[in-house]
């Protein structure tokens, strides 16, 4: 089977600093993959490179949604999202002055098309689309378990709910691959458990593949089919949870040389 995301020799330099160094990663359809590594290893930079926020210095990012491979590096973030890669942010970036429902409705932007004139004249197509947006958004909120907050302002939600709202919003863009940047950060064990179920549900019911950056190893190990470990921008290991758990290179990267010695 062809991978749905294939990253070859991805390199990103900031001035003299090489944040990502010839990284190769590929994700298969229906997979939950994790990207782990110590702080500052270049994980979020990797997300930024493939979602178009940064233009990579070198290498290729290819996606294939329905079997047609397509090179996407250098495209603008909004174009990348339209092609089916959606993401969440490590430092929650919700639309704070909007309600929970509206946040998800914004996510429907790429799959709808009402323009200025349509909005002014409120044509039949516009009304139908608006109805669709609201229903679709509400359905997503129900699935994520946020339906009780529909009309709350996003900024007033508890922390864990804000993280989930980020996921809901990303799902509304109709992605085939969801990129989650530390979705469990700041969650308590109960919330993390619910997140675990949610991610599985997203993969199994919505058929969306997931790539997550996460520091909560319990979550990573229980969820992931495949784990990629990076350090100093380079990939140091790849494999299933069991393999990674016992990989000496990974242990060394995480714990440092002194302890290992």
């Amino acid at each position, binding site marked *: 089977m062809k991978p749905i995301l294939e990253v070859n020799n991805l390199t990103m330099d900031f001035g003299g600093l090489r944040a990502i160094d010839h990284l190769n990663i590929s994700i298969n359809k229906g997979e939950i993959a994790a990207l782990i590594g110590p702080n500052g290893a270049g994980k979020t930079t990797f997300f930024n490179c493939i979602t178009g926020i940064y233009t990579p210095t070198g290498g290729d990012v290819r996606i294939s949604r329905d079997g047609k491979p397509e090179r996407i590096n250098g495209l603008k973030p*909004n174009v990348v*999202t339209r092609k089916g890669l959606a993401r969440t942010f490590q430092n929650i970036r*919700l*639309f704070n002055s909007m*309600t929970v429902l509206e946040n998800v409705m914004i996510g429907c*932007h790429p799959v709808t098309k009402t323009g200025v004139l349509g*909005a*002014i004249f409120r044509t039949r197509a516009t009304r139908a689309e608006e109805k669709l947006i609201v229903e679709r958004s509400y359905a997503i909120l129900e699935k994520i378990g946020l339906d009780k907050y529909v009309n709350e302002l996003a900024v007033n939600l508890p922390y864990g709910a804000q993280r989930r709202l980020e996921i809901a919003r990303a799902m509304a863009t109709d992605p085939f691959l969801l990129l989650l940047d530390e979705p469990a950060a700041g969650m308590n064990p109960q919330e993390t458990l619910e997140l675990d179920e949610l991610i599985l549900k997203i993969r199994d019911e919505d058929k969306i593949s997931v790539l997550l950056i996460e520091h909560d190893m319990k979550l990573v190990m229980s969820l992931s089919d495949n784990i990629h470990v990076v350090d100093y921008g380079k990939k140091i290991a790849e494999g299933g949870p069991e393999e990674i758990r016992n990989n000496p290179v990974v242990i060394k990267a995480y714990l440092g040389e002194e302890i290992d010695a």
Partner: protein
Amino acid sequence: MTVNNEIKKSFLASVWFMFLTFPIMVIKVNTVSNTVEWRWMNMVGVGVGAFFLSMLWRYLLVKKEMGGKKEKTDKPGLVQRVLGERKFAVPALVVLGIFTLVFPHLFSMYQTNIMISALIYVMLGLGLNIVVGLAGLLDLGYVAFFAVGAYSYALLNLHYGLTFWIALPLGGLLAGCFGLILGYPVLRLRGDYLAIVTLGFGEIIRLVLENWNEFSYGPSGIANIPKPPLFGLDLSLNQKTIYLFYILVALVIFTIFVINRLQDSRIGRAWIALKDDEIACQAMGIDKAKTKLRAFALGATWAGMGGVIFAAKTTFINPASFTIWESVIILCTVVLGGMGSIVGVISGALLLILLPEYLRDFGEFRMITFGTVLVLMMVFRPGGIVENVRKTYTFKR
């Protein structure tokens, strides 16, 4: 004792401001006759004023800080609640409608003219509200589009004899095109730079109008711009003014209608999202440049139509009407009323434009009040008098 402490602080503020304002407020030099006028009473006024105002200032700051700790609420304010209730809203709108209809017959021509000016500002404020309030783009060159509209009508009428009704959409369209052309290169700039660049554009347009005599007749401007005709009827000046008033009322209603529809549409939501967080917005598949450009051009279109009406109202235009401070006044109406809120912007515009007109002695303090309003609103109530409230949806399941 805290009371003593407060008095001490206020006393110090009072002394400080007496010192600060001493040369400018107290001494007035007549450089021709070489005499000095000492206005000691001013110093007393500043001293007493600063004493009490500084107390008020500190009180309000403390109050705001306490308020800041509370959760941000989205409970609608009084105005929204009244408007939200059908049994209040409908009669209120009917009364307002009747009042508007009879206004020019109840009051003098002078009053009607003032009302026309105020309504032009309402239109401009609502237009700028799209740009600043909804999309969060601080446009300090808004008046340039107003000028484009006014000059389009004046020049097209002068050279080609185009009438008001053709010039109105055309002026709006031209201003909108200007918005697109100017907006395209500048809209990728960060917020504060955007503000300065638009200011620059605004001033460039004004200076060009001032210097390019062959095109715009320079500082002397263009006179004898006709008021809108009514089916070729021969109207007296008064009737023409009343007619213009009704046209303007219709246009304001049209504007409210359009903005109301836009702000809860897919486009309007994209604007607000863009204002909240640009990066997240792009990650949701929204084209930043296109979305901003739409807001900018739409705002410009309204300014252009406002300009056409302005030209028809005053029948004379020159570049002096289109300085940066005009943009600032319009901005002030938006900020005072409440960014993003239609009711807010309308009340802001009416308040700011009508009050100085009716308080006769107040006229010279107009601009200084605008300045004060901008600072105070930003410090104490950045959301404006009528804060915008998001639409809520109900689900019956």
